[in-house]
């Protein structure tokens, strides 16, 4: 199975490991992530104004590239996923945006939201299947108590992202179970980490992340997993707590036994 893949800018640089582990895991699970050519940054946040078109075009390009290949489009970064799905929803359901975007794009055939956007976790749940994943785990993370940190971007608005129940999600918990660890459910897992506010309002972000980590630790989590580089940054940077935060792809790679090979390649490249 081949998917079009949109890594996004942060996965190229600061969150390289999120990307590397994702690719290695995909390989181990028997599907391929085919990177879209010449993709451009999604912008990090979805432009909320109903009159914004230009800011959505980079996404439309990527979506259309996937359409032309007849593939579903997979993202790993929460932010890219959020922006991509919402732009796609606009192309499907908002006639005005669709028309105007297509006027800019001058495609052979107008893009009308034909591509399905999938988060890597959705691929695991809906395509691979967590039961299937469980069978492929060679290195179950036994005894680890892991808290899933969803944040906002994966879940909300629930109707458009249609990712999971925005108030009581379970996809990451199911994932944690599949890789052999024990999920810790804590109430702040879908609360905001502060997002981009941490650029100018460090204290605000810090107090938010404090609440999150405190709650997770209170319920007994040894570590947190996330799909978002910015959540990772905020949680790591701002929190007074010592709880480690890792990308979900890292524990996936570890459970599948491909983590070492990943790092090796990386080292080779660096060397």
């Amino acid at each position: 199975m081949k998917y079009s893949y949109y890594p996004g800018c942060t996965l190229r640089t600061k969150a390289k490991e999120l990307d590397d582990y994702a690719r290695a895991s995909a390989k181990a699970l028997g599907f391929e992530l085919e990177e879209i050519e010449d993709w451009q940054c999604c912008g990090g946040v979805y432009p909320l104004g109903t009159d914004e078109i230009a800011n959505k075009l980079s996404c439309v390009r990527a979506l259309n590239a996937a359409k032309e290949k007849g593939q579903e489009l997979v993202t790993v970064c929460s932010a890219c996923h959020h922006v991509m799905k919402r732009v796609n929803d606009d192309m499907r359901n908002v006639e005005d945006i669709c028309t105007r975007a297509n006027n800019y794009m001058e495609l052979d055939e107008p893009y009308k939201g034909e591509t399905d956007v999938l988060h890597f976790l959705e691929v695991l749940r809906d395509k691979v299947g967590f039961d299937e994943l469980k069978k492929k785990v060679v290195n179950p993370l036994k005894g680890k108590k892991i808290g899933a940190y969803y944040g906002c971007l994966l879940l909300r608005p629930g109707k458009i992202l249609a990712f999971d129940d925005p108030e009581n999600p379970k996809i990451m918990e199911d994932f944690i179970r599949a890789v052999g660890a024990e999920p810790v459910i804590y109430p702040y897992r879908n609360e905001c980490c502060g997002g981009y506010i941490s650029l100018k309002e460090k204290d605000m972000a810090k107090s938010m992340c404090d609440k999150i980590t405190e709650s997770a630790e209170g319920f007994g989590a040894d570590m947190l997993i996330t799909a978002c580089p910015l959540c990772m940054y905020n949680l790591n940077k701002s929190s007074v707590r010592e709880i480690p935060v890792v990308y979900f792809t890292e524990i996936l790679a570890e459970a599948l036994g491909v983590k070492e090979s990943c790092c090796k390649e990386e080292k080779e490249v660096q060397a």
Partner: protein
Amino acid sequence: MQRIGVFVCHCGSNIAATVDVAKVAEMALMEPGVVHAEDYQYMCSEAGQAKIADAIHEKKLSGIVVCSCSPRMHEATFRKAAERAGLNPYMVEIANIREHCSWIHKDMEEATKKAVILMRAAVAKVNLNTPLKPGESRVTKRALIIGGGIAGIQTALDIADAGYEVDIVEKTPSIGGRMSQLDKTFPTLDCSACILTPKMVEASAHEKINIYTYSEVEKVSGFVGDFTVDIRKKARSVDMDKCTGCGVCQEKCPSKKAPSEFNRGLNTRSAIYTPFAQAIPNVPVIDREACIKFKTGKCGICSKVCQAGAIDYEQKDEIITEKYGAIVVATGFDTINLDKYDEYAYSQSKDVITSLELERVMNAAGPTHGHLERLSDGKAPKEMVFIQCVGSRCSDDRGKPYCSKICCMYTAKHAMLIRDKYPDVNVTVFYIDVRTPGKNFDEFYRRAVEQYGVNYIKGQVGKVIPQPNGKLLVQGSDLLDNKQILKEADMVVLATAIEPNPDVRKIATMLTASIDTNNFLTEAHAKLRPVESPTAGIFLSGVCQGPKDIPETVAQAGAAAVKAIGLLAKDKLMTNPCTAHSDELLCNGCSTCENVCPYGAITYEDKEVNDHGIREVRRLAVVNSALCQGCGACTVACPSGAMDLQGFSNRQIIAEVDAICR
């Protein structure tokens, strides 16, 4: 040529303020066939009706057009007036210049123009009207009540007391409904069981009332006065006649893990069970999904311990077919599913419960034997938070757009009862508005605040956050203080929206009763016919029609009973004369109409006809006007145009089209 009189109603200022009524009357005189036109303040008043009668006599009118409100409102009034004056009532047509014109248009010129056109269409139609005579049909003097809650029980008692046979069909093993699950009732704090149980007993003992519990309506055919209904009596696995209700079987049943429906799943029951101690009939049923005997073939303990030999594992569903003259729907409500509202942590914490669950917790026969305690650890709570409007007044698809009406009052009741019984428990209520219209209702709510010290905070709750220490952190708004509040609570109670019983849509479809987007049955008129469905012979009782509390439900149940009695008291009904009719000379005998008739009202016969001198036997469609309901499906299906509908004939409708497009 008809001699038509046109009567334009001002409806006070309802029509006259936007439609130049005099002009409409003036224009009417220019229409073919119109020999008289006038306008008057209130055409439906006695004086207005007298004007119509006078004109019929003086001008020898053969047809009448009343330009007024909707025909659904006063068509019957004007038809009766015409009949009294000696005119066939079906020579009256209404031009709806109120609901379809004056009330929705602002510009006088525009509205008047439209009113004139609507008048013209009605005149064009009346020109082609012919006198019609209704037929007669018989009335079966027996009523069916669907649903055995307080609404159904009350309606049944009232109808039975008037001397008519009544059958109640109840889906669950016992009558009693939601009210039997309640602990106390507002605004007088009566014990619910104390006032309900006597009614249940009375219903079961009444010689005119027959109760089918654990049964469902399966099929309905026929029409007002003459419905035929199939009732499925589900296999109870217990012989109703033999069982003595001793209860030993329930005690001995080894399968005790089925969630108790009656206690809202807060505890469990045995596989053979009666829902509650005062159940009527006091005969258990075997839940075949939970029963070990049915699952594995082994066990059979209940059969062994039953001294009466009432257990019957072989029992099968039974279909009973019965005829009824009237049907009352009393299917009640349930609380909505809270899966989509998990910001309140309902599925994440046992200590977040719905109000109906709290009723069970407070009830002596409930899962905690009436002690207020946390369901997670059995500890007594110190801080209780109530959240109002959970799923009510919600315009997105998570909840319901309407106000559930009962929540403000029962929350005040709960708060008061808790403060009364457990003075050391603090009670906080987060509300959007406190709605207390009703006799002694606001006084009741004020007592909760003033006498019992319940803390009411205006603002909604955003999230309920379970804490590692087992407490619940409630994050809400205090809009009057302009603060975000974080309140630690031991228990949170959600005033969950109510919705009509999910089965009601299926039932409405069987009854061809209209139903709205929220699954509430539609009344024939919101104000004037609030307990009748637009479908003749179907009456509405209780929450199936809209949210209401117990006093309102009982009042409506009585009203529905009176309407049903009014129908059953008649020996014969006049049938709608607007039925289909086939022109023998045009009929091809092709059977197309027969295929689309939903009532089986069309049959084919070989008949001799005289077609302009040619005598021959032809296969012809014959309409049974007692069965025909006048939908008109056949008229369009008929390729030769032989089939036509009286009162809505092809020529009449085409005349209307022409008048509008003129």
